[in-house]
């Protein structure tokens, strides 16, 4: 009797999980916070594909790349992986991702390969296609209009000097944080993006194509200038010293500071902007959220930010690549992105052109129009992740006075040169 009961209960549990009845069981590793909504999307996929069961794994971006590499090296890991735009090339070359060329030929996705944004970033050194662009974004400035008004500021900054003036004025006039940005040097630090935006808008770049090869596209003086510029925010006190301990753009210090009005300006990707605005609206029901987005400042040349985003890839160890491709087809449908992953924009030109960003988010639309890909950074032999981390460390070292701006700039430049020479 006990045995029969146990067997029946086990059968019911397995039936409820659905796993035992599916022909294919695959694992999808997802690194953004919207895991609940993503689970709902996967449920819809399972209804549409009753022969495939999908397990959702939630993970953190900061550890995602190295964890997947470790797993893939020993024949493990999820079937479908959520990866950054700049990862497929390295992961594909490392043999961790499954080449998707055949799938693209046999069952192209949505409006076709050419409609996908930044698909060139998915091509490995061997010509294999190792990722499908899923969502895209770029960063823009987010301002608290009420704090700007209190400080007597009438318009967002057009250039970097104006941004510092606005930040200083907010602090002097209201006692609040002006432009609060994470200045920490931890893994995948935010300062990497700020430094590059500053360099690009001033006509330089850490890496440039040089004939058939690659070289550094910046001088020590230009690196040191950027370090000094961003350090001045901490030195003048309008970005607090505590930001030296903050690395991530999605750190609660930034989200909360902008939401509760302790901070006047931030630089964020669209999902964080929406998160801040939603948090404000939840706390102040019925009130209009006092935010505007605007373009990142220009330098001696026009404003420039990176075309970022996420791709989906298939683990080279997957036993179910066909089922994984079906899942990718489902997840890249614009209507599914809009329904379950609404903080992101689809990385496809046709649906992207049809999105109404609204007045508050219009700065992101303007910025997206001028955003650039990582180009030579990702095409060259230096891994973006390594340059990213070294940049964070050297900026951090200069910010705390461990190295002078010139010493830190020299070390960063030499390290990048070494990476490009290898």
């Amino acid at each position, binding site marked *: 009797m006990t045995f029969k009961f146990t067997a029946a209960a086990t059968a019911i549990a397995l039936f409820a999980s659905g796993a035992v009845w599916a022909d294919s069981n695959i694992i999808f590793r997802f690194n953004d916070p919207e895991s609940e909504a993503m689970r709902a999307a996967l449920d819809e996929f399972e209804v549409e594909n009753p022969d495939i069961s999908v397990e959702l794994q939630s993970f953190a971006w900061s550890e995602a790349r*190295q964890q997947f*590499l*470790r797993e893939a*090296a020993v024949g493990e890991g999820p079937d479908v992986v959520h990866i950054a735009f700049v990862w497929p090339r*390295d*992961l594909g*070359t*490392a*043999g961790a991702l499954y080449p998707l060329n055949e799938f693209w030929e046999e069952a192209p996705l949505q409006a076709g390969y050419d409609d996908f944004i930044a698909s060139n970033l998915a091509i490995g050194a061997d010509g294999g296609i190792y990722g499908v662009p899923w969502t895209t974004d770029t960063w823009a400035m987010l301002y608290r209009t009420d704090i700007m008004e209190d400080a007597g500021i009438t318009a967002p900054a057009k250039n970097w000097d104006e941004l510092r003036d606005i930040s200083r004025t907010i602090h002097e006039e209201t006692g609040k944080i002006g432009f609060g940005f994470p200045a*920490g*040097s*931890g*893994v995948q630090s935010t300062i990497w993006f700020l430094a590059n935006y500053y360099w690009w808008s001033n006509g330089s770049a850490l890496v440039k194509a040089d004939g058939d090869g690659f070289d550094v596209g910046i001088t020590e003086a230009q690196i040191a200038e950027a370090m000094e510029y961003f350090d001045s925010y901490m030195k003048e006190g309008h970005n*607090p*010293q*505590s*930001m*030296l*301990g*903050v*690395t991530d753009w999605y750190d609660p*210090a930034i989200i*909360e*500071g902008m939401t509760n009005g*302790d901070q006047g300006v931030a630089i964020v990707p669209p999902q964080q902007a929406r998160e801040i605005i939603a948090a404000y609206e939840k706390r102040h029901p019925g009130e209009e959220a006092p935010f505007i987005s605007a373009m990142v400042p220009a330098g001696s040349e026009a404003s420039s930010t990176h075309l970022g985003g996420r791709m989906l890839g298939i683990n080279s160890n997957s036993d179910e690549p066909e089922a994984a491709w079906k899942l990718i087809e489902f997840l890249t449908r614009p209507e599914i992105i809009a329904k379950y992953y609404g903080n992101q924009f689809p990385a496809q030109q046709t649906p992207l052109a049809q999105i109404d960003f609204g007045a508050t988010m219009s700065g992101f639309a303007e910025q997206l129009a001028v955003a650039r890909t990582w180009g030579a950074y990702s095409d060259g032999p230096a*891994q973006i*992740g*390594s340059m990213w*981390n*070294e940049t964070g*460390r050297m900026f*951090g*070292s*200069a*910010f*705390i*006075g*461990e*190295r002078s701006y010139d010493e830190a700039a020299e070390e960063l430049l030499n390290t990048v040169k070494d990476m490009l020479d290898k």
Partner: protein
Amino acid sequence: MNVEAHDRRFIVLMLAPIFLFLVFFYGYPTALNLYYSLTDLSLLGMKEGGTYVGLEHYADLLTSKDFYRTLWNTLFWLTGVSVVIRLVLGLGLALLLNSATLKRYRLTTISRLLLLVPWATPPIVAVVVWRWLLDGRQGMINKFLMNIGVIDEPVAFLANVNTVWPALITIIVWNTLPLVTLTFLAGLQSVPDELHEAAEMDGAGPIHRFFHVTLPHLMPSIVIMGLLLVFWTFNNFIYVWLATGAGPGLFTNVLATDIYIKGFVDFHLGYSSAVGMVMAGIMAIFGVIYFRLVALREFKDVL
């Protein structure tokens, strides 16, 4: 064959499984790590393996200024300062918990229970809680210090080079002090009362009795606890990584975090393995000290 030889053979036979276990689970990984340290293995190239580069990583390591600063951070700040503070505070707290005053006011039990709270807190929870307490914008400690007028502006304890090490050591001490205290408390309770009474009859005051009766009796516990704390702390990764991520900059980088950064942030597994081997070498020195001071004596007693 005499009885002693038979006993020795029996002991060796009984120890053989654990010896094989150690060879398989410690010897083999160590040898593999040594091999990796002589290659340019990258996390991106694990499938094809690394190329042999000889002692290149060791040469780079030993000529790098950053390595010596990391070594200093590990030996002085993380290990030296934190171990000494824990030994001194642990002894002081143990004396307090063992004092007649606490017994008189019936506070002994509650004090010992309270002491267990930090110890029962997992390190990850302890670090997260302390990060919030020490936060430079919303932290309770900043608010408290500003309310009582000690500081005018918030201090970013974990981001300021003047405060980051004391703050880190505070977290480590808070979380691990109870074990030290309880060990010393057990030692104190084993000091025979007759010794104190005899010393008192000979005219020794409390300070004299502490230095000439209590402390000599506790010395074996202090030595063992000191060495164990060195082992645990020198190897520790979690406190520094979770509290500061080795920053600001690389100001609080220690050998354990350096291994992680080189291996899993920069993907240079070969170089990271070399750092690991150097770290293992330093630990071996501590191991020899421990063996000579403690284990050898016990080993001889057994044999």
